[in-house]
């Protein structure tokens, strides 16, 4: 599949679109916390520290190294989400971009949490730190 799933489907209602926008905003805030933690400009938030302590697929890795490696591999994608959310209201996302960004955010967090993308929202705390 060359493009994100359901990319060409229209949102069925303004409410569905608003929900997607809200989900992207929420996931994006968690991803921004990863960026700032990896860059050392802010302390590692509690939820992320807890994840970093878990073994990843049976392997243990020092949390700092774990975070740096994640940030290094996904730096372009993390930056793309940050840029997308930084656009502000004057740069309203079209439907395709919104779907793509939401899918990207889900996948990035699913990799970090080592869970399916569909479970990302439940695995995260209600709000970022």
């Amino acid at each position, binding site marked *: 599949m060359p493009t994100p799933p359901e990319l060409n489907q229209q949102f069925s209602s303004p409410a569905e679109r608003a929900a997607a926008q809200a989900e992207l905003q929420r996931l994006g805030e968690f991803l921004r916390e990863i960026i700032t933690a990896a860059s050392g400009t802010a302390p590692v938030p509690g939820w992320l520290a807890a994840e970093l302590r878990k073994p990843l*697929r049976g392997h243990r890795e020092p949390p700092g190294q774990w975070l740096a490696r994640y940030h290094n591999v996904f730096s372009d994608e993390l930056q*793309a989400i940050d840029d997308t959310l930084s656009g502000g209201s004057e740069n309203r996302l079209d439907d395709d*971009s919104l779907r*793509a*960004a939401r899918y*990207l955010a889900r996948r990035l967090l699913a990799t970090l949490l080592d869970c399916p993308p569909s479970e990302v929202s439940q695995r995260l705390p209600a709000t970022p730190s």
Partner: protein
Amino acid sequence: MTETHEFTLIVAGADVQTDEALNALAEVGCDDATVGSSGGVQHLDFDREASSYLAAVLSAIEDVEAAVPGVRTVRVLPDEYVTLAEIAQRTGRTRESARLLSIGERGPGGFPPPAARGAERNKLWRLPEVAAWFASALGEPAHLAPPPAQRAANALLDLRASTTELGRAELSRVRQELGSLIRRIRLIEMASPASLDAKDARWSYADSA
């Protein structure tokens, strides 16, 4: 993996049919094109091997314009003649389904006869006739639309041509829109499952350890 892609470039400006131009075209690798003109319109009919249709078209445009100073590509056209495989692709069917339609074993019958008969796999149909049949017999006009990659190629050519005709304020606006478009394309590229699967493989401790 490469495939052969058939398309026609309509060009304007310099004459591409002089001996000098033909030699230059051959030197840059355009020996996969037949050069001609019809009604004063110059065209190059390509059978180009490339990894994708768009890669084939864009490399051909680059080659032609590098080989012959003063020539510019104005349009990409599909070949007027299509194979059953192309008919299947354009109509979203399997090749077998298209074959059954063509011999009347599926659908209402009356499929246009081939315009050129080669070996069974090399039969060619005229696209306008096939398109008209799909519209009238099956009510499917959608396949008349050119493939997305061809629309993209022509959009790029149109945009390039328009930039010499726009004023400074309009160019600035176009640049802003292009910036947004580039960000959108980049986002969609990044969010493709294949791209993310590749990144996940890089990330996977098992793979990197």
